[in-house]
């Protein structure tokens, strides 16, 4: 067997200082990779602690935002319809951002699809396997306009009985908070099952190389990107299919059924929360309107249609 002493020339030595840790969180695996520090005896310890705190953010965000736990903060809102409820900063900011994206996409992205998601079988807590069933009047149609915010009091008011689904916001938010925690280390990668943030460079001193999975052939990549200090998120119809039906995890809030205008959307943005939300919005909007959305918001993206045609913003070339 080889030993450390026989390390070949082709591998930079600092590779051995990398920390790569994977933890099951938020229904997926979260991997944090911090590229080895230059030197200094104290840094490794600080690095461990920072990674610990970075992982903690995922729990903290999930506690507030999960739809799969009746006692979570977001689910408690449904018990107080019509009443302003004071909420945590995490929940308030997540909802405020989700509503802004809903506004911008004219409802193609809508966080009030929670109940529709639940009734379509996306109702299982990943850790315990328990399913949730919220008693709501399903005949009432709801939209993002049924949610009111009060920034001064930090309250959220649901005007109608509804469940907020922050799935497309919370994971990205957790990635961004973890990224902020790791910022002092400059070179790191956070992968939370589709939501990534790439800080600085990879162990080779190059921008991180990120493969984008082929939406139909999971043995292939449909593209690969070079990223540095950017978030990237891909939403595909192959992820997280519903337990009951053939549908996938992105509902068109306007029709209540799975969106099928595209099969895969990738967005590159300054933070993962924005990338994820816009990928979800574009998934519903389809290629033409999706590209318009990207151009309007000055983010870059790649949309794959069911016929596997590629639609990419001009800026995508910069990442190859």
């Amino acid at each position: 067997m080889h030993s450390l002493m026989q390390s070949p020339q082709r591998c930079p030595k600092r590779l051995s200082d990398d920390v790569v840790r994977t933890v099951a969180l938020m229904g997926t695996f979260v991997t944090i990779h911090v590229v080895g520090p230059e030197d200094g005896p104290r840094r490794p310890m600080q690095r461990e602690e920072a990674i610990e705190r970075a992982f903690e953010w995922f729990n903290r965000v999930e506690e507030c935002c999960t739809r799969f736990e009746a006692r979570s903060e977001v689910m408690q809102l449904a018990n107080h319809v019509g009443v302003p409820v004071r909420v945590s900063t995490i929940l308030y900011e997540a909802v405020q951002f989700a509503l802004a994206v809903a506004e911008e996409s004219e409802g193609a992205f809508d966080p009030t699809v929670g109940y529709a998601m639940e009734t379509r079988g996306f109702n299982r807590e990943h850790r315990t396997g328990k399913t949730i069933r919220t008693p709501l009047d399903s005949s009432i149609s709801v939209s993002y306009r049924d949610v009111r915010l009060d920034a001064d009091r930090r309250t959220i008011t649901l005007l109608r009985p509804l469940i907020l689904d922050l799935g497309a916001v919370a994971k990205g938010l957790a990635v961004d908070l973890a990224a902020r925690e790791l910022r002092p280390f400059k070179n790191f990668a956070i992968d939370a099952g589709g939501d990534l943030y790439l800080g600085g460079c990879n162990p080779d001193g190059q921008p991180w190389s990120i493969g984008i999975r082929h939406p139909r052939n999971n043995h292939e990549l449909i593209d690969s990107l070079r990223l540095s200090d950017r978030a990237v998120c891909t939403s595909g119809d192959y992820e997280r299919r519903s337990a009951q039906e053939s549908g996938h995890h992105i509902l068109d809030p306007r029709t209540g059924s799975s969106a099928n205008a595209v099969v895969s959307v990738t967005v590159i943005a300054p933070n993962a929360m924005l990338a994820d939300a816009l990928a979800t919005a574009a998934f519903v909007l389809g290629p033409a309107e999706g590209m318009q959305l990207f151009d309007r918001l000055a983010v870059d993206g790649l949309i794959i249609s069911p016929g596997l045609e590629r639609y990419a913003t001009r800026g995508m070339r910069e990442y190859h």
Partner: protein
Amino acid sequence: MDKSTLLLLAIVLAVFGASVAAGHPAWGTFTGIAIILLAAGLAAGTLPLHSRDYFEERIRPSQRMSNSLITLSSAAIVAIYAAGYHRTSPAAHRFDSQTRQQRTSTTIASVPPPGAAKPGIDATPPVSRSVAPPVKKRPPAPRKAAPGAPSDSQVAPSTPSAQTRYKDGVYLGWGSCPHGDIEASVLIQGGKIVSTAISQCLTRYSCSWIAPRTPGGGFPDLPGQVVERQSPKVDYVSGATESSYAFSDAVAAALSKATE
């Protein structure tokens, strides 16, 4: 604000201070007025400039919404981070318990591979190391042997689904190559492989060599997907063929447990 203005301001302030100290209120009033005039001048000179920039930035139509959404998301992250939630207890406790759980599974899993014993790490009882990271890459330990037949371990399976192929749960398996051992974890939900990942990387090189972070699902969610890591498009993989095979073996070992 240029240097001469600053200098003038400083002189006026000095005179003001001196006059007050010396008990000449008339001089104090004079310099007070001078300060007000100076401030007004500064405001007239600098503020319009700033607000014009600001205005131009705001009115570019293609940038307008982008600015607001990017700003909003960035501000949200800053606001939450500043609130310092993670330092309060509930999350820390939950994280600890999860870490303990992970620690236990790691301990179980670490027993089988010969030569993988790392004194002081996995040998330690999990409870006493509650804050220890659940999965940590260690500097590769020199090893006598890493046989090709990997062992595996099953952790916390939930309700098995009768009509599906795999039992739900998280499964661990080991794979070996000349560079060392890799432990893969496979998450099965609803009888399907939801996600796979490297849970322990005991190789001479960082497992990042075989772990490009594909946005579509992190690690390959089927053993065969390791093949995609060798795509020439992804430099991460090139030169890590054997480690890729080790990962593939590890996933296969984990899956064999899930079918039992």
